[in-house]
């Protein structure tokens, strides 16, 4: 029977939640890397036993971890524990934590509009290749895209993105200037989408060498030019593997849709109680069914009326229904952060999301009903799920 393995990154460590295909009884393991912030964990679609994790700390910086046995054991790629000191002149170790911008880093704009040096802070998102278990992309703060082609041992910036002519004008959002979304096109291996807060969405059609802003149709009245080419605070983008040109976006405010690979966008917020939010995802088997979690506002990062509701649209947006069964409908004031929703590939499709209150909710019936797998983890930063044979 198939299994689901949910990878949860929190403010104080990582947790792995596993269940059989019924997804009723869950085993919880962890914390892994306790005390550290785990911004993101994600498994390779090619080799599900291989999981990459971004372990980070304001004190000790960035650490990349990798498991090759489904999360039972972990190493820093290229630096197995207990290995003896490398001989002089041999391949240096400890390179897996090294993220260095290519060339002169230059400046972007600071919050007040003044130039500010590009400074690496952390890895927000890891996106393993769809075809090669040794290739993985990293989206980092300050915004840039890195790639490793040796299982996370060494990282090289795909600097065409940061060197885009608009790069010097990018500004951070409240959470920092982070590259938080990486979408790989399963039908066109040279096409990559990324999203940056608060620069917007970008697309590469040459495997990351050159980039094009894809923000036409986004409207952000809180920035000097509401229809600017860049400067939009995109929170998350998702697509369905069978229709990679159809993109869904949760912007700071507004839920958006593109049917032409991001060349233009239209709003599909429809009847949502608020169109502010962070997460968005697509049903595994119904490309027009999408999920968001509305959040009251950017000033109050909690659900409207204290009711935690997932909203589902079966029409690709505009018409939304509230999903409440099993979710708290009073006195709930948690947030759901941008990387904290995922769907499995089982049938019926499972949907998962984590909250800043430490709950991880799961639905094994396409969103109709929900249960908390765990209720008392540290604040959840990210949720990913692997569907295992």
């Amino acid at each position: 029977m198939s299994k689901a393995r949910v990878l949860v990154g929190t403010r104080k460590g990582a947790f792995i939640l596993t269940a059989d295909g019924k997804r009723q009884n869950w085993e919880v393991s962890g914390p892994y890397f306790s005390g550290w912030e785990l911004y993101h964990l994600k498994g390779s679609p090619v080799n599900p036993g291989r999981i990459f994790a971004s372990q980070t700390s304001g004190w000790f910086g960035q650490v990349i971890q990798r498991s090759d046995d489904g999360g039972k054991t972990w190493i820093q790629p290229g630096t197995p524990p207990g290995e003896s000191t490398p001989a002089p002149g041999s391949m240096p170790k400890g390179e897996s934590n090294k993220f260095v911008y290519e060339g002169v880093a230059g400046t972007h704009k600071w919050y007040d509009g003044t130039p500010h040096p590009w400074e690496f802070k952390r890895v927000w998102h890891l996106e393993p290749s769809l075809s090669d278990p040794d290739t993985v992309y990293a989206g980092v703060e300050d915004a840039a895209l890195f790639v490793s082609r040796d299982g996370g041992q060494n990282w090289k910036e795909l600097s065409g993105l940061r060197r885009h002519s608009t790069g010097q004008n990018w500004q951070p959002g409240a959470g920092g200037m982070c590259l938080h979304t990486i979408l790989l096109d399963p039908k066109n291996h040279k096409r990559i989408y990324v999203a940056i807060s608060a620069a917007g969405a970008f697309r590469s059609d040459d495997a990351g060498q050159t980039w094009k802003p894809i923000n036409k149709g986004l409207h952000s009245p809180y920035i000097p030019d509401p229809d600017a080419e860049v400067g939009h605070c995109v929170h998350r983008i998702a697509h369905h593997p069978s229709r990679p040109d159809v993109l869904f976006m949760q912007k700071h405010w507004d839920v958006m849709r593109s049917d032409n690979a991001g060349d233009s966008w239209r709003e599909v917020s429809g009847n949502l109680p608020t169109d502010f939010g962070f997460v968005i995802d697509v049903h595994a088997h119904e490309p027009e069914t999408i999920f968001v979690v509305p959040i009251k506002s950017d000033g109050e990062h909690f659900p409207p009326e204290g009711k935690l509701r997932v909203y589902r649209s079966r029409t690709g947006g505009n018409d939304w229904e509230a999903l409440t069964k099993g979710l708290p409908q009073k006195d709930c004031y948690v947030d759901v952060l941008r990387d904290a929703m995922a769907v499995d590939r089982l049938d019926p499709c499972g949907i998962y999301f984590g909250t800043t209150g430490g709950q991880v909710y799961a639905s094994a019936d396409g969103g109709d009903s929900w249960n908390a797998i765990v209720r008392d983890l540290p604040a959840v930063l990210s949720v990913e799920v692997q569907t295992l044979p």
Partner: protein
Amino acid sequence: MILVVLPAHLRTLAHVQGDVQLEVAAPVTARSVLDALEARYPMLRGTIRDHVTLERRPFLRYFACEQDISFESPDAPLPEAIISGREPFFIIGAIAGG
């Protein structure tokens, strides 16, 4: 033999328990101690000093014989008590945040 006391999180990362003992060739300085530490435990590279500039990370401090030497030259000789191993070289994380 130089004794180095690491913050708990870095001991976990390096897969060590307790103090670290290092052979460090003269002259024994903060830089040479950290070089030896990172050579023996390469997984610590970047966690104490920046990978490229080798500057101390902002929330860490170096202590020797109860003195904060974080702002002294990394090439200044360490006290005899450190060199002889009677006193440890401390790497300490700031008590800040949650």
